[in-house]
């Protein structure tokens, strides 16, 4: 029976972690970027579309973990959406394989302005361990302008959350 378990959960302590501290330097850099580009601001809620461009799926595991009740991404107004047309942010992983480049470019083109591009993981930063391969472009920046990089192999959910919260802060300040 599910009901007793649900009732019990109502009276037990939440398993959700406290939010991580947001690094000021990252927020500052994002604000500057926003101003330099004269970009319109988004609200206190961001819709995220994840695009895997050659990941080993390690990054996806940690991005998916953001949705579990321990990290509970949605409490911050951050949520994953099914279509780039609904997205404010593309969260992109992988060294950008040649076989995915066109799909990424089309996804970006489908995402309405204003929009952010976040590169997640060492692969997305510069190709990571796959640097120099015939099959990759060598990082997301090779195809599109990247606003924020969250390094790591893979970055932990906490590191991901820090980056995404910095993005929210940057929208709110200034």
């Amino acid at each position: 029976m599910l009901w007793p378990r649900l009732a019990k959960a109502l009276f037990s302590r939440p398993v959700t972690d406290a939010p991580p501290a947001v690094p000021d330097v990252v927020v500052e850099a994002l604000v500057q970027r926003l101003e330099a580009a004269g970009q319109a601001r988004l609200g206190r809620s961001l819709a995220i579309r994840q695009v895997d461009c050659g990941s080993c799926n390690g990054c996806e595991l940690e991005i998916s973990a953001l949705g579990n009740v321990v990290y509970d991404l949605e409490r911050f107004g951050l949520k994953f959406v099914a279509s780039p047309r609904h997205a404010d942010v593309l969260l992109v992983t992988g060294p950008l394989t040649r076989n995915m480049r066109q799909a990424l470019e089309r996804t970006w083109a489908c995402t309405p302005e204003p929009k952010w591009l976040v590169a997640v993981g060492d692969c997305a930063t510069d190709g990571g361990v796959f640097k120099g391969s015939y099959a990759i472009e060598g990082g997301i920046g090779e195809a599109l302008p990247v606003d924020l990089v969250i390094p790591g192999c893979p970055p932990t959910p906490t590191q991901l959350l820090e980056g995404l919260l910095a993005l929210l802060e940057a929208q709110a300040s200034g």
Partner: protein
Amino acid sequence: MSASEPTGAQPAPARPRAAGAAATIRAGRQQACRPYPRFLLEAGQWRGLVVALRDDPTLELLGLWAEAGLVHAAFHQPNEGLLLASVAVAERHYPALSPVRPGAIRFERMVHDLWGHVAEGGTDARPWLDHGRWAASAPMSARPPAVTTPPPQPEFLGAEGEGVHQIQVGPVHAGVIEPAHFRFHVQGETVVRLEARLGYLHKGTLALMLGKSPRLAARFAARLSGDSTVAHSWAFATAAEQALGVVVPPRAVLLRAIAAELERLHNHLNDWGAVCGDASFVWPQARCGVLREGVLRAAALAFGHRLMMDLVVPGGVARDLAPGGTAAIRAALAAVAQELPGLQRVYESHASLQDRVVTTGTLAPALAAAFAAGGFVGRASGRGFDCRKLPGYAPYNTMAFTVPVQVAGDVDARLQVRMAELHQSLALVESLLARLAPGPLKLDLPQAGGEGVGLVESFRGEALHWMQLDDGGLIRAVFLRDPSWLQWPLLEAAIEGNIVADFPLCNKSFNCSYSGVDL
């Protein structure tokens, strides 16, 4: 509902030694490969092998790959072990195995795309990994020809009938998953044919490994499929250690197995919950998410990385269990053990959930056998292969555990197998921790030549790695075979006749690796 109990390990029946196909291979010239022999066949012998394979269904094809001038195949003789066969490529051609082993189809397409070797008489000659977007085709051949034409439109297999139409999905999907293109032919709500097109994640992994030492190349094996990083690292390390005749210290063996079982646990929890979630029953997914997070945090504390990447290295393990690691693992696993029975009860007692999983996405045992499907996909359809048991490897060959097998082959059966394996892994970790004794963690590898095979059971099935080292101890040829190679084609069979809306459920219940097969 079909809550049949797991039936335990399949007994090893005494079977007369298969004369046919295996004997044909053994007639070739034996090469120095450990621990399983490899035989170099003449072209005529290889043709004979194709005939023998047709007459002798017991010899299972596990993989097919190549190097410049040669094609290699790995076979499994049930209850005996592995057997490798090679043939020289003559004027770019070699006789295809796909007419007698359907599992060979995608391998042959991959071999063509990477090395340019053509499978003569093969049943499917369409490109696989090569989408026409690389600067040169056959990038691993001696002289890759430059590509001058724009990428071709992919061809898909058709389906005919009244009102048949297509649904095209991907490569970018609606969820946080890996990219692939799925082409459905549907009639009303019913799937008539599904064809998956992969290759979007091709990173050129194998080419990057050539000319490197096993130590340096290990990080590529660790990133073949991030969710099975421990198992792939272990299979790769084993191949190197076999090639060099190195025996790793006992503490390293135990730590590897602890990490591998933690990996199995976090993946099984993730997917077991996610299948329930895909049936819109989110409570088990929420609970599994908490339990899995506990396992990952324990892994981070014990081994310094949540997914335990780069922990297993050729020669041993890179890091020791951190102080407090044992206690953290025990605490996380105690939480899992406490909650599993309740999760299973909820799963079994909700008709709305059972209605979605029972008789959905059924994979017939005959197909699972024909493709030699490993892991829970095979074990839920009657194929009880688990390489921890047979051929077996340390430390599992001295441990008691059973291999759960079901025969229904539906989404429910795959979940039942995974639930049973969760219990097995909990017990295995406990006894592995109890056996730990102080000792060295790794050995230096000699700089020498050799050839070796590594076979390690990942949560999905057996990871099969092969490598050849030159006299300086550098990799001159290598292949990393994820178990998903033999499971992806079966997903296409399992979805047939189901409704489109059940695809996410079926897909998740298989959970094949995209990156693992895209190389």
